[in-house]
């Protein structure tokens, strides 16, 4: 056994290959190659008007399109000094939470669970576990209903605009939405029981360096101005170039990042490790029941952390609906603003981890510089490091089993390879 190669990792979004070189019991090299075609987004937005940036950038990824769209809107607004209303902020957060439910559900129920039940995918698993899969799809649907109600479309929303929203949701719409969210919240209790009963495969890991955006308030959340590492280092979001280093990869179309050579992990598990003690209500109960070891040494718990976050996102969405059902929806259009030159750098926590958008505009609102850094690219070095640790500790289980475990580990990070290869390679 010298080289283990997997040419297309399945049940992940996009195209990735893995090569692990072994020499006896020593792991020589791990190469994770994201070979999805280069997307060229950062260059294609150059010169385009600011209003087009969120819908274009949204197309980096379908699963977390709302995250890209909302982060891009925030970046445009920051660059031009536009302050949106609290109502717009809440409605955007609601759309964002809908994405969180949809994305995490897709990953947990359709992509990860089949591994634990010995199936190749939902199609096979549904034959024996139809109710479990159907339940997962119902929760996923609730996330999409939110995205449709607020964004006007589940994938690549059409209703979010610079300064506000095109059309506001109605109270009857929000009431109906609340009912669906509540149903899913109840259904998630069975999911917690199911997942609590699973055995998460272990290997000899090391403490993981985590990173996530520090939520603005004392609550759990996905928006903030600074980014915190689990060893205490903290950086303003707009000083991201000082907080980690992107490197060109010789074998992958994504740019992996490290902090001074050290790999770090972003995503649900990072958020739970850093801010899980802020959770309340049913999410707090789920976290206790699911017993995620904190500080974590095993990335496979990321999918378990996603279950907790589905519950958080459902509860928070219900709270936002309740707010509007009590206070009403103000009939306000997008805020007035003046197009001006500037740079807006924003970091948010999308389903797979920290997302950075940095856009600069000239006086006419046309893009002069663009930088997008996605969580899947940030995680690449961490995946490679953990694959090496796994290989080292489980080298005796045979090639077939190792391949299965490798794939399961890559999948736990929920890589979105379309996202990670959004950039253009510089010659």
């Amino acid at each position, binding site marked *: 056994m010298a080289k283990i190669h997997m040419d*297309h990792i399945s049940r992940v979004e996009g195209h990735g290959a893995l090569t692990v070189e072994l020499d006896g019991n020593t792991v020589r090299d791990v190469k994770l190659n994201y070979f999805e075609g280069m997307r060229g987004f950062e260059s294609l937005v150059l010169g385009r008007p600011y209003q087009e940036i969120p819908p274009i950038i949204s197309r980096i990824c379908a699963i977390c399109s709302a995250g890209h769209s909302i982060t891009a809107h925030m970046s445009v607004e920051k660059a031009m000094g536009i302050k949106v209303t609290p109502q717009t902020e809440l409605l955007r957060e609601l759309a964002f939470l809908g994405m969180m439910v949809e994305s995490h559900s897709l990953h947990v129920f359709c992509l990860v669970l089949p591994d634990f039940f010995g199936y190749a995918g939902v199609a096979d698993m549904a034959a024996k576990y139809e109710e479990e899969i159907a339940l997962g799809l119902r929760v996923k649907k609730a996330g999409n209903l939110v995205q449709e109600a607020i964004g*006007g479309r589940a994938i690549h929303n059409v209703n979010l605009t610079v300064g506000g929203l095109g059309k506001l949701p109605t109270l009857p719409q929000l009431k109906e939405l609340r009912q669906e969210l509540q149903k899913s919240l109840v259904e998630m209790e069975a999911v917690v029981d199911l997942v609590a009963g699973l055995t998460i495969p272990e290997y000899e890991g090391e403490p993981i360096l985590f990173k996530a955006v520090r939520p603005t308030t004392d609550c759990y959340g996905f928006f903030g101005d600074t980014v915190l590492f689990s060893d205490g280092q903290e950086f303003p979001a707009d000083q991201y170039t000082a907080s980690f280093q992107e490197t060109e990869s010789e074998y992958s179309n994504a740019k992996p990042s490290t902090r001074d050579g050290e790999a770090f992990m972003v995503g649900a598990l990072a958020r739970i490790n850093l801010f899980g003690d802020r959770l309340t209500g049913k999410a707090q109960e789920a976290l206790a029941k699911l017993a995620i070891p904190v500080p974590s040494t095993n990335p496979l718990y990321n999918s378990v952390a996603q279950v907790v976050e589905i519950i958080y996102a459902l509860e928070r969405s219900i709270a936002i609906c309740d707010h509007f059902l009590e206070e009403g929806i103000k009939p306000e259009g997008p805020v007035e603003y003046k197009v001006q030159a500037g740079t807006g750098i924003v970091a948010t926590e999308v389903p797979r981890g920290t997302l950075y958008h940095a856009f600069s505009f000239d006086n006419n609102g046309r893009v002069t510089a663009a930088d997008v850094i996605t969580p899947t690219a940030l995680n690449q070095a961490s995946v490679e490091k953990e694959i090496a640790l796994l290989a080292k500790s489980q080298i005796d289980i045979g090639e077939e089993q190792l391949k299965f475990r490798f794939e399961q580990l890559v999948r736990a990070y929920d890589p979105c390879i379309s996202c990670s290869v959004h950039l253009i390679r510089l010659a």
Partner: protein
Amino acid sequence: MSAKPRIGIYGLTSCAGDQLTLLNCEDELLAILDAVDLRSFVMAHSANPEGELDVAFVEGAVTQQSDLDLLTDVRSRAGLVIAIGTCAVWGGLPYLAGKGTAISQHIQVDFSIPGCPIEKSQLLNALSALLHGDLPLELPYPVCLECTIRENNCLLQRGEICCGSLTAGGCGARCPSHGVACMGCRGSALDPNYQSAQQILAKYGYTPEDILQRLALFSGEGFSKEGERVG
């Protein structure tokens, strides 16, 4: 076709939004999976036997050799190849980035479902027709017609660069129904009246280049420099 049609679902360079649209058919997904013999769906399934296919759905643009290799292989094994999504149908944003081409530039395509992403309803109608051994119906009208049926105020008349009159229908005029101008994400309509749209927008000070730049966002090679439909 055999009792259960052998289906393959493939993604070239794309955001995976069209494959995700299938996975977003939460109410119908299990019934669909039951009605077909799924031979390949790498995004959602690990064991993919491949082999001969009755129908292949292909998302994404061709941007690299591996895309072309996969596409050629799929074409050689499939009875019907259906392009799903604007990237596959027109080249989409990858075309604008100067890197992508529509799959019809490389292989024969039997049917196209445009959209960024495709509409669930159009996908389900297509699946339903295919399961009955028929080709899906092509929608012959632009977004503008659907917008008129919904009695929306015309954004073009208000001076916004709305691409609804030139864009393939099927989305129920989503954007204009939210008061947002159509960006043309579904690509060119069958018989777009570019001259008319240009005349209206000229009244508001827009040049043909302004319109073409907007159309070029998603339509890739769908419009010529004169605004006429290509392909």
